[in-house]
């Protein structure tokens, strides 16, 4: 996992001494910096946006940074990368969640103890599937189908949708001579 310290980005890009992510123009500057760096990372990489030294994040900045990044990530503008949020306090979580929900987006966040959770908007089926992956670490469509007693193509669709939303990673593996997709926790 590659960590981007947003406080350092703020210091380097804004140069006004602020530790707060406020205003849309500031958010745009920080997002553009993140985008520039993300494009240099290898495909398959997980980028952690570290908020631990950030004070306030307002709704405009949450939209400009997190919601727009996720939206563009989902449109494959940065290649096969993944983004998670770390070091969030409760207030930051709340404001980012509002920005994500407005655009029907979601992102994985990590608590200080390493526990991952979902921020934003996701339907119940996908939420349930995601929590099974979080518990087991990785899963195939067949395993999910057996676990929740659904058709294999339905479970495959759910897993694929989670991957399209960049909430789980996907890699292929040869099992018993056939290629299977393995979906893994970020």
């Amino acid at each position, binding site marked *: 996992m590659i960590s981007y310290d947003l406080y350092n980005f703020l210091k380097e890009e*804004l140069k*006004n*001494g*602020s530790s*707060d992510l*406020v*205003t*849309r*123009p*500031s958010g745009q500057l920080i997002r553009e910096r993140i985008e520039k760096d993300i494009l240099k990372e290898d495909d398959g990489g997980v980028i952690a946006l570290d908020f631990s030294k950030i*004070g*306030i994040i*307002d*709704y*405009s900045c949450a*939209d*400009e940074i997190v*919601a*727009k990044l996720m939206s563009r990530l989902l449109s494959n503008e940065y290649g096969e990368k993944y983004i998670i949020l770390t070091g969030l306090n*409760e*207030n930051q979580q*709340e*404001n980012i969640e*509002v*920005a994500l929900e*407005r*655009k029907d987006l979601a992102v994985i966040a990590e608590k200080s103890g390493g526990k991952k959770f979902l921020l934003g908007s996701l339907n119940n089926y996908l939420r349930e599937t995601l929590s099974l992956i979080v518990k087991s670490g990785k899963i195939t469509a067949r395993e999910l189908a057996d676990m929740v007693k659904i058709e294999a193509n339905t479970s495959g669709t759910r897993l694929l949708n989670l991957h399209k939303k960049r909430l789980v990673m996907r890699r292929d593996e040869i099992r018993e001579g056939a290629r299977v997709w393995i979906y893994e926790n970020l």
Partner: protein
Amino acid sequence: MPNIITQLSDESFEAFLAHANASDVIDLRQVAFIDPYGMVGILEAGRMFSQKDTMKTLKLPVSDNVLKYLERMDFFKYAARFFQIDAGDDLLDRYSKSSYSDVLLEITPIEKSDDIHFIVGKVKERAHMILAKHLNYDEGAINGFIVALSEVCQNIIEHSGNTGFVGIQKYRFQKLEKNVVKIAVMDLGIGFRKSLGERFDIKDDIEAVDKALFHAVSRHEDEGRGHGLASVRRFVNKWNGKISIRSGSAKLAVVPEWSWGKKRETNLTYFPGAQINIMLPEI
């Protein structure tokens, strides 16, 4: 003969405007009470007149308390740009700042994004002293307050096409026997009607303010835009506060049960830009 002005707040702003428009000398000598809305309103009126190459004279209040308060709020720092001040030469010496102040934010210009970083930083420094101590706000509420302040100030930079001022002060509200914090934010920009009119067919000022405040409407198509003022309204509702927005010739307010005032006013004297007043009570 213009009316005598005895107080300056959102409630008396219309009388002040009528007085200011009618005379070259704005007589505030009898003013015994003034809040951030009143102060920022005077400055914005002065700025509006100066944009028309008119510099009016400001006769200052005779009340020592009001003058001290104006000084604490940095009123004179900006007033001299837009008015001829009718007062003794030693005014600023007489009213040097007191070390204790219940000012949460002195009158501060909003001209660029960096100003909002400054405002947020300043309010964060003083938030515990004032919001926690006098309004009993916890961390979550303080965060909500600062985010709401940031959003309401950003409207000026994002939508007005002009600049503005903000000021915040804590008061003891005698009628309620409660502390309240008052935020005033104003600009001389294009106003809600013209801003939203770029995208929607808006018939008047009241409809424009209603759309921005209650329906999260923005001149930008992006779904993430236009939620600033609506989120401010939700914050104010959550903490049982009052918010009013005046723009052009209309004013719309959300009035809690402990407060008073009209919810909708139209056909007011035209004043450019937007004038926002927020009042938050102790919880």
